[in-house]
């Protein structure tokens, strides 16, 4: 397979070259044909010339012979002898005359003379001349036959004939003797070869004269070697006699060197012209091709390269030039590039615009941020980056539906846009997260002013479908170049500041380096946590739950502790959020479930019938494998589901109520108990919880700890217990730290109590001891299931 792809220029050049070569070949062949034709024409022309000359010589010879006849009969005595048939005198006279004329060889070469009476009876003939000719053998007998047929005045005319007799050419001429008084005929027989040989002088060319048997009767001294010399051509002419056919062949050699050279020169001129014409045509074609095709195509290709390198060149039109096809192509290209330009702009706006709010999206924001940091790096411009997250948005979304959430985001988006200057960029990064670049703002005061303005604006209630919604905003603020010039670093730091603001309910927070250190600790913790699960550095602590009605332990809450190799024991609030953020929470939950149930199984073997409670994270409800994992752990440890309680904070339940409902229903059907932890800190209502398969609620310790001193807390606890009981739910009170609180709870009819008053969280071994020794332990009533 040939893989040769020549350029248009090469293709055309080669084609023209081949055509040129063919043209030149044609010129050479035509030249050759033309030369042969020219030579043939020369030959023919010469043949005609020879014919004329030969005819002329023949006529002259006949004339001369005829004149000889006139001259012979000029003698009166001869004429009288003819009349008298005096053959003696006649023969004598003829012999005399023969001698007289025989010497004039250059004019006529006489062979014989005859005399006849008017009836063609021979009177006499010359005894001189050729001995092969006699009265019985007179050459050209047709002449006499023709003469005999003549009558009247015709008989007085001279007759002649050329013939071959016995392989020898002869010219016979019959002249009447006498004038009007007709007396007889004189017949002169001559050899005309000498006369025809004279044609070489007449034409000035070498001659070879042959007779039909190829015998050369005359050849010029300067006859050339015609075989060896191409520049000599031979022209032939055959002289025919009416009665004996071909008599002589005249071959004239003529030198055509001049013509030959002229033809050679002509050929050279034609070839040269063809070459010049070919080159000129090639050049002209290439110039034309360059102008009409290659240049416009080059422009198109160049434009395509530009577009490929940079899409902003889309829509730029190329100049429509060249021939019809190329111009058509260019026009189509222009139309296409215009359409693509529009399409590209649409795609770009789709790619860089948040479809919900119409604000720039994350991609465009990063692009702008990159530009801003580029300028900041060169200290040409400062800017401030805001990272903004709405508070309580998820709640709105989950409780009122996505369409309300979307509407809310749109409204907030509009508000944010009106706050910003045109030179600023406000973008929606996703969810309820927004970010802004404020260029040219560098003072903390200005940034604070803007942040406050934004927070106030967002705090304004939003009315959607008769819902009066109020959300808040947390803003993290970084300054560039002071706080960094790297995109990702700035975003990370803004994020950090924002979370700080959110966690501390500060509204806005400027980034500070200590936040960073905190985050570095977090980062290390993340890595450590991964290995901790693998290396079993985690430990479970258990805190007993006391059944208030009989004063004995009814269960324990499993609490995870991390025995960090460098930091010692870490409490869950230090690493659970990290586990939630990184997704490690699922592995952690899995580990806790198995460890707690294994311990539970051990206790059950020791005939200690207690319930074990495991805390679930809000993220755990998003884990589709949770139900399976719980089921597998129960099976694996051989624990009946009724001995397992799963504790969820009310915010975890409320974060995604529908999902929580589905998940918890499955667990409930399995026989697992569900507790709502930290009740009272969130926004949920008991009415809503009633819909969930919840068996008990745990009142947050913040209400319980000081309920003996704070009447409000006591009222809350009281009403919560009453309401829960009305709804058929058990109530567990956390944070019981003294007898007084316990008494109050007993009075209020609380079901279960938990707190340092009974026992602080301890490891399994210590708990075993406690179970056996404490007055709240298993020995309180010695009642074992």
């Amino acid at each position, binding site marked *: 397979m040939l893989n040769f792809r020549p350029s248009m220029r090469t293709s055309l050049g080669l084609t023209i070259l081949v055509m040129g070569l063919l043209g030149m070949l044609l010129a050479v062949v035509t030249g050759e044909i033309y030369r042969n034709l020219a030579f043939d024409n020369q030959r023919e022309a010469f043949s005609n010339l020879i014919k004329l000359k030969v005819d002329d010589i023949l006529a002259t010879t006949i004339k001369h012979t005829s004149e000889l006849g*006139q*001259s012979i*009969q*000029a003698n009166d005595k001869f*004429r009288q002898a003819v009349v008298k048939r005096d053959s003696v005198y006649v023969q004598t006279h003829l012999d005399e005359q023969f001698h007289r004329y025989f010497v004039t060889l250059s004019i006529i070469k006489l062979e014989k003379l005859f005399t006849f009476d008017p009836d063609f009876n021979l009177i006499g003939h010359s005894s001189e001349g050729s001995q092969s000719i006699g009265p019985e053998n007179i050459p050209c007998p047709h002449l006499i036959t023709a003469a005999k047929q003549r009558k*009247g*005045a015709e008989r*007085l*005319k*001279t007759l002649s004939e050329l013939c071959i007799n016995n392989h020898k050419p002869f010219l016979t001429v019959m*002249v*009447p*003797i*006498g*004038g*009007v*008084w007709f007396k007889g005929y004189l017949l002169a027989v001559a050899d005309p070869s000498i006369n025809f040989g004279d044609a070489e002088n007449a034409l000035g060319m070498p001659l070879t004269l042959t007779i039909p048997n190829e015998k050369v009767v005359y050849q010029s001294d300067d006859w050339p070697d015609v075989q060896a010399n191409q520049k000599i051509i031979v022209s032939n002419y055959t002289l025919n006699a009416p009665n004996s056919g071909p008599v002589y062949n005249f071959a004239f050699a003529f030198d055509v060197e001049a013509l030959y050279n002229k033809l050679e020169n002509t050929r050279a001129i034609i070839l040269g012209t063809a070459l010049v014409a070919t080159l000129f045509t090639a050049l002209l074609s290439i110039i034309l091709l360059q102008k009409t095709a290659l240049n416009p195509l080059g422009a198109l290709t160049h434009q395509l390269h530009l577009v490929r390198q940079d899409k902003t060149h889309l829509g730029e039109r190329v100049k429509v030039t060249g021939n019809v096809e190329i111009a058509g192509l260019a026009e189509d290209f222009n139309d296409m590039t215009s359409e693509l330009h529009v399409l590209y702009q649409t795609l770009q706006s789709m790619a860089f615009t948040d479809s919900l709010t119409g604000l720039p999206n994350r991609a465009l924001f990063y692009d702008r941020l990159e530009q801003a940091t580029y300028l900041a790096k060169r200290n040409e411009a400062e800017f401030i980056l805001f990272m903004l997250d709405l508070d309580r948005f998820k709640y709105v979304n989950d409780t009122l539906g996505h369409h309300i959430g979307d509407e809310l985001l749109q409204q907030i988006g509009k508000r944010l846009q009106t706050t910003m200057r045109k030179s600023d960029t406000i973008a929606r990064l996703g969810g309820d997260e927004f970010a802004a670049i404020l260029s040219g703002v560098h003072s903390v005061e200005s940034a604070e002013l803007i942040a406050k303005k934004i927070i106030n604006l967002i705090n304004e209630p939003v009315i959607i479908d008769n819902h009066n919604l109020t959300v808040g905003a947390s803003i993290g603020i970084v300054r560039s170049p002071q706080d960094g010039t790297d995109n990702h670093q700035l975003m990370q730091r803004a994020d950090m500041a924002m979370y700080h603001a959110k966690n501390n309910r500060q509204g806005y927070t400027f980034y500070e380096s200590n936040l960073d250190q905190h985050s570095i600790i977090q980062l290390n913790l993340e890595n450590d946590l991964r290995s901790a699960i693998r290396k079993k550095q985690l430990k479970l602590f258990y805190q007993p739950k006391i059944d208030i009605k009989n004063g004995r332990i009814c269960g324990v809450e499993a609490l995870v502790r991390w025995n960090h190799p460098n930091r010692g024991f870490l409490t869950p609030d230090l690493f659970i959020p990290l586990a939630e953020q990184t997704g490690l929470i699922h592995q952690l939950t899995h580990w806790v479930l198995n460890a707690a149930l294994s311990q539970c199984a051990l206790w059950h073997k020791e005939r200690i019938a207690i319930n074990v409670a495991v805390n679930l994270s809000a993220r755990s409800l998003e884990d589709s494998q949770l139900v399976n994992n719980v089921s597998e752990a129960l099976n694996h440890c051989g624990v009946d589901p009724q001995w397992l309680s799963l504790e969820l904070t009310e915010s975890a339940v409320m974060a995604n109520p529908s999902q929580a409902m589905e998940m918890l229903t499955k667990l409930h059907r399995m026989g697992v108990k569900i507790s709502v932890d930290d009740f009272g800190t969130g926004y949920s209502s008991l009415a809503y919880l009633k819909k969930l398969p919840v068996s008990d609620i745990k009142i947050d310790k913040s209400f319980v700890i000081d309920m003996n001193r704070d009447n409000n807390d006591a009222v809350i606890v009281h009403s919560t217990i009453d309401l829960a009981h009305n709804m058929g739910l058990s109530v567990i009170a956390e944070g019981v730290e003294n007898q007084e609180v316990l008494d109050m709870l007993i009075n209020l009819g609380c079901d279960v109590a938990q707190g340092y008053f009974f026992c602080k969280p301890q490891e399994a071994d210590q708990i075993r001891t406690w179970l056996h020794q404490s007055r709240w332990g298993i020995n309180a009533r010695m009642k074992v299931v």
Partner: protein
Amino acid sequence: MEYSKKISKIPVITCIWFLLATIICTTPAIAETSPEKIEGSTLVNAEEFIELVGKIPELLVIDSRIPGDRKQGYVEGSISLPDVDTTCESLAKVIPKKESPTLFYCNGVKCGRSAKAVKIALSCGYSNIYWFRGGFEEWLAKGYPYLQE
């Protein structure tokens, strides 16, 4: 001015000369052509001449040319009597009777000698006169034999 006038006269004179020369040269040719026929004589061509001899062997043939012209060749048997010498007397010497058949010829149609001689013979009272108007020119052109002195 004088010089240019002289110069301009030269072509005019030359033209007049050419014109005169042309007129002079062409006029005699027209004048020398002999008449188509002569009343009282019988006009013959070469063939009729030969036939005539066959019929009338005693036919008298008179060559009216001057001797210089006769040297070119002549019809066998013709008697030389140039027109300038032709008179009733000279004719009477060669023609036996007034009714003897006699033929006159000269060089050809442009030669007026035979015509002149025929007219003289007629005026002399000869009654059987033949005129070979084509003359020796026709004779030669038709390839009939002739004699040369």
